[in-house]
């Protein structure tokens, strides 16, 4: 499988008055054709900024300071605006978290969808309209002609997210970045949306980066997973390996804190402390102060190593998940 996206050593920093916020600080990953990569982490771990960096939509005072983003072999980190505008919505699409906010309230659905086509191709309005209608049908929206004529406020949350997904797939992109697309939806709708997204990536061969903090979603959806903490990837590997046998204490903690039916009645695991202040990260391993398995070596910065067919940034891999229980 060829890599659609190859990110290596990506660093996106924000130069604020209070100091430099290293929101993304050396992130590497690749995504292949038709693959879904889960990017998991707490709020503020830099997962969304990673997504926006790929699209070149980092506003000042932030900028990509280092690293490369290769899209189909082409370097697009700090590429010129014209080239990026050409890629956005055309070769790389994005799906956002809150479907209530991402559709323009005063424009009809057809206007907004057709605009996405007409921005990149010179086709007739009729053709653009027909493609929008077919795309809505593809994501399971009944009577798409009616929905096209509707305004966003006339659609439910799940329906709007389907519209957003249909819009993202309109130009048959090579890569879709989905930034917590199911977080604002209730679980039944969540399941439907995940199903649609999975079906479409398999059908079209589109690669996908699914950004979320919900491990349950990723477990059922992604092929590979990257766990981020404080701007760095701490564990990366095949979904089954990481979910079933997590090695990094942070991954262990995250998985332990998800309530499941077979640990009924037991106390959930809790990761100590709070997400660190990005302006004053602890010395050495950023997760160190909160880690249940820390040792004296943890005051040094661990580098990311290949281990057991995955990549890990930890001195003390958790060989058993027993510590959690």
């Amino acid at each position, binding site marked *: 499988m060829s890599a659609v996206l190859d990110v290596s050593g990506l660093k996106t920093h924000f130069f604020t008055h209070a100091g430099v916020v290293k929101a993304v600080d050396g992130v590497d990953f690749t995504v292949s054709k038709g693959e879904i990569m889960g990017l998991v982490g707490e709020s503020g771990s830099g997962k969304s900024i990673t997504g926006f960096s790929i699209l070149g939509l980092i506003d000042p005072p932030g900028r990509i300071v280092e690293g490369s983003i290769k899209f189909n072999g082409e370097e697009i980190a700090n590429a010129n605006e014209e080239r990026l505008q050409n890629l956005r919505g055309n070769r790389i699409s994005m799906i956002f978290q809150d479907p209530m906010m*991402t559709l*323009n309230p005063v424009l009809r659905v057809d206007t907004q969808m057709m*605009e996405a086509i007409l921005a990149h191709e010179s086709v007739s309005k009729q053709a653009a309209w027909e493609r929008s209608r077919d795309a809505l049908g593809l994501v399971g929206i009944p009577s798409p002609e009616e929905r096209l004529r509707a305004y966003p406020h006339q659609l439910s949350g799940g329906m709007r997210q389907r519209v957003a997904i249909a819009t993202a797939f309109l130009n048959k992109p090579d890569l879709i970045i989905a930034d917590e697309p199911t977080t604002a939806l209730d679980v039944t709708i969540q399941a439907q949306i995940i199903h649609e997204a999975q079906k479409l990536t398999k059908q079209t061969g589109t690669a996908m980066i699914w950004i979320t903090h919900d491990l349950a979603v990723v477990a059922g959806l992604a092929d590979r997973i990257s766990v981020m903490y404080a701007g760095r990837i701490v564990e990366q590997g095949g979904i089954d390996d990481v979910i079933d046998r997590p090695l990094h204490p942070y991954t262990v903690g995250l998985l332990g804190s998800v309530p499941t039916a077979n640990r009924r009645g037991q106390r959930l695991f809790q990761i100590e402390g709070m997400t660190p202040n990005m302006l004053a990260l602890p010395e050495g391993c950023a997760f160190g102060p909160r880690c249940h398995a820390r040792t004296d070596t943890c005051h040094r910065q661990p580098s990311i190593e290949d281990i057991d067919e995955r990549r890990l940034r930890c001195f003390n891999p958790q060989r058993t998940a027993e510590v959690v229980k």
Partner: protein
Amino acid sequence: MTDMTANPALNADKPAKVETPFQRFRAEFFESKIATGALIVFLIIVLLAVLAPWITPQNPYDLAQVSVMDGRLPPGSEAFDGYTMWLGSDGSGRDLYSAILYGLRISLTVGLASGVIALLIGMAIGLVAAYAGGRIEAIIMRIVDLQLSFPASLVALMMVAALGKGVDKIILALVIAQWAYYARTVRATALVERSKEYVEAAQCLGISRFRVVFRHILPNCMAPLIVVGTVQTASAISLEATLSFLGVGLPQTEPSIGVLIANGFEYMLSGRYWISVFPGLALLLTVVSINLVGDHLRDVLNPRLKK
């Protein structure tokens, strides 16, 4: 309890009636009797002004039709030419009913034209300020602040003094006096809208900057702009009347409402009230009806006051 019809996804055969935002707005607007009444009054005033040449007995600009013999006649008197002057006549023998309708033509033209031009200019400048940010925004907004620290009537007075008399010059003076209100309103709303997610989503679709600003952000700024537009149009009309009353607006030969009021001013104490009072009432009615419409527009368009 499985009410299938409650789920819009399953209710495909009977989709809800598509209601445009405009239809909803219209329904809400006509709920208020006062605003509806004010709108009707305003439309009647506009209609009378437009039809003035066909429904008035005299053209007050045509000196051949104006006779000094008819000067200062009280309401209801018969003119030299045989028609009745229902509202009396002024010092130069102009039938006040005719003069008021012709005067309204000028007042409304000046008010609407300056309102629309100031709106377009202010809107463009405000959008540029909001979208460009940084130094450009700072410079534009300091100019706006500077301008708004002077009373609009003073700015207009200075402009007219510099530009001279005439309808076009008055419009230009009013545009210069009022664009800043629009610029500030648009900039404030556009800043809020720009930070919303739909703008980011539009950027992610690869839509050009120009289109994002004018197709996505601008329509979302229209509500406050319409409200400011109505109120500023009313204030432009009264500002024009003020300038004309002070004698720097329109010439005596083209009497606007302000000139008519000024003409009658000297007769006020001699009991010939009608020369000033009737044009004054016409001005009052126009400005109040526009303001009532504007007030209600603000209520309807303000999402925080939505029921």
